[in-house]
Every structure is written in structure tokens, then in C-alpha cells.
């Protein structure tokens, strides 16, 4: 991957990738692997970008697809990739951010289903229901209800853990 492409087309959107990858990984090692794989896929898919959507939407889509694919692969190969299925008590050791509340939020998000993780991350990134539906490939009508349900679940998971 040329450094030009990385610097101009990926790095300005690295935040998107980092935030999503963190939600699908439990260890720093996995996180870095996911991040690299996403960058590589973006570079490989760059010629398929048709400008029908924003570049950032395109990046969200690729990131999600890569994360879900890698997660699926790891599920099929838990012996080799046990780090993705750390028991909760071990997963809680993984504090990637300086902000403790954010670490707690991520721990809670990681306990959601794969799709719910994607939905709530996109919601927190202030994507519209239409955009969320477009990125995930679902009906926008159900997104609002789903988000409320996820938020309720997160509230329960975070109860007493944040201040």
C-alpha cells in the first residue's frame, strides 16, 4: 500500500476504523491485526468505490465487513485465536483508553451481538438511521427501535460502573 494512499485516504478516517476494530477485539494484538487487515482491504477495494456514497461510509462498510469476517474466522478456529474469546474477567483487563468510562463502555459494547455492536457504534458516531441501515444493509424503520433496545441493555451493563 503506498504511503500516499494511506496518508490521504485512510489516515484521516483512521478514527472510524480504530473505534470499530476496538469493539470487535479483546486484545491489542488482535486489534492491530484487524486494523491492518481493514487498511489493506480498503486499499484493495479502492477501485470499486463508485462515489455513490461518501468515502467515510465506504470505509465504515469495509471495516465492518472485515471485522465480521475475521470474527467469524476466529470463531471457526477458536483454538488458534482464543484471544477473541477471553472470559469476561480477562477481557476486562484490556483497557485501551485513558478514559475509564470509555473503557467500561467498550467492555459493555463487546458483550452485545456482532450486529448490535455495529448499530450502536454507528449511532454513537452520529450516523442517521438511513446511513446506519445503508451501511449494515437493513431496513431503516427498525433501526430506531433497535437502538433504544441496545441503549437499555448498555445502561444495565454499565450500571454502577461509570461516574
Amino acid at each position, binding site marked *: 500500500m503506498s504511503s500516499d494512499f494511506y496518508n490521504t485516504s485512510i489516515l484521516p478516517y483512521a478514527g472510524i476504523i480504530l473505534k470499530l476494530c476496538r469493539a470487535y477485539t479483546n486484545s491489542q494484538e488482535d486489534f492491530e491485526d484487524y486494523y*491492518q487487515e481493514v487498511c489493506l482491504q480498503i486499499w484493495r477495494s479502492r477501485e470499486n468505490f463508485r462515489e455513490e456514497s461518501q468515502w467515510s461510509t465506504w470505509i465504515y462498510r469495509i471495516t465492518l465487513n472485515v471485522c465480521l469476517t475475521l470474527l467469524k474466522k476466529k470463531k471457526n478456529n477458536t483454538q488458534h485465536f482464543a484471544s477473541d474469546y477471553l472470559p469476561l474477567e480477562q477481557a476486562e483487563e484490556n483497557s485501551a483508553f*485513558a478514559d475509564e468510562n470509555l473503557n467500561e463502555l467498550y467492555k459493555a459494547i463487546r458483550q452485545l451481538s456482532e450486529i448490535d455492536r455495529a448499530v*450502536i457504534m454507528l449511532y454513537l458516531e452520529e450516523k442517521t438511521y438511513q446511513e446506519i441501515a445503508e451501511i449494515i444493509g437493513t431496513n431503516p424503520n427498525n433501526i430506531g427501535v433497535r437502538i433504544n433496545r441496545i441503549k437499555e441493555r448498555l445502561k444495565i451493563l454499565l*450500571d454502577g460502573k461509570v*461516574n
Partner: protein
Amino acid sequence: MEKSIESIWKEGFLKKDALVAPKINDLYNQKSKHIVDKFKRMFKINLIAIVIFSLVFMVITTINGLPIVGISWFLILIGLVVVNKKLMNGLEEIDYHANSYTYLLSFNKWLQEQLAINRKMARIYYPLFFLSIVVGFWFVDAEGIPMGERLVGEVLYGFPDLYLVNGVPLIGIVLILIIVSMLALFGGRIYDMDVYIVYGRMFNKIEELITDLEELRS
């Protein structure tokens, strides 16, 4: 809970160093070595499977009165395994510490040479497989006499004017020769199809990696 998840999210990412991108490193090196290691493993398993199959096949065919087929197949397949085992030793000469591009190119060169040798061998062993089946069945005991002779007798009963060469109908010899020639002619292609069923995806992956790397170098 005092804070909303929205505010935790926003405030958390406002902090310095909340989003530091990891360095892109060595991914292609890891991928190249991973795919070549995977191929080596598959290749080894394949050779072991051939040895096991040839032994089991020899036992089964011998028990069922077709020892010529079993023994011939065993010898041909063991020959194949020996040649491929020697070819595999060439893999060890590839410098594992070279950069991904050189490493993949060396591996691909080895692979193409290995495929070319096997393709040539296939043009010999596919006809041999077929001939061993024909000969094997010819000598199967059919109520005291070889099945081949019995069949010829029955055919001659219906077609008494058939021309025989050493007791075998000429038409049969011609048919066998045609099939043997076809197998010798298309053995390489049959081998390609055979090998692509097992390794096709991996070959594509290697080509894809090399193309990516060439693009990166340009």
C-alpha cells in the same frame, strides 16, 4: 448510571491519545509466509494420504482378486510420492528470511517447476493406471479361467469373424490404444484439473499476493 452513553463516547474520545493508529507493518510478510506454510502442510498431508490410500487400495483389490491393479497402483503412487518428496526438499532451499516479494517469487518458481514435472508424469501414469485396470481385470479368475479369455470366448460366440491378435480381438486392442493415447495426450490437463480442485484457491491467493506486491513496487 449518571452519564449517558453518548456523553461517555464524546468525552472519552476528546482525550489526548484516545485514537492512535497502529503502525502498518509487515502484513505482507506475515501473509506470504502463512500461505506458503499452509501449502507445505497441505502438500505433506496429501503425500501421506496417497501412501495410505495406495496401501489400503492394494489390500482391498488383492482381497477381491485384483492384485495386479492394487500392486500396480501402489507402485505408481509410491513412485509419485518419492518424486514429490524430493521436489518438496527444494522448498527448504527457499530463503525464508527474504522479503515477501522475493520469497513469493521463489516459491512460485518452485511451484511452477513442480507442477510441470507432475504434469509430464501424469501423461505417463494416467495411461498406466488404465492399463493396470485392463490387465488386472483380464486376469481375474472367472470360474477357473481368466475373465479376459472368458469374455473373448463369449464375444466370439456372437461375432465369430472377429480378427484376433494373440487371442485378443483387434478391435479391443485398438480401443485400448485409443484410450491410452487420449490419456497420454490429455494427462497433463487432467492433472491440472485434479490439482486445482485441491490447491486452486491457494494458487489464486499466491497470484493475488504477487500481483499486489508488484503493484506496490511499481
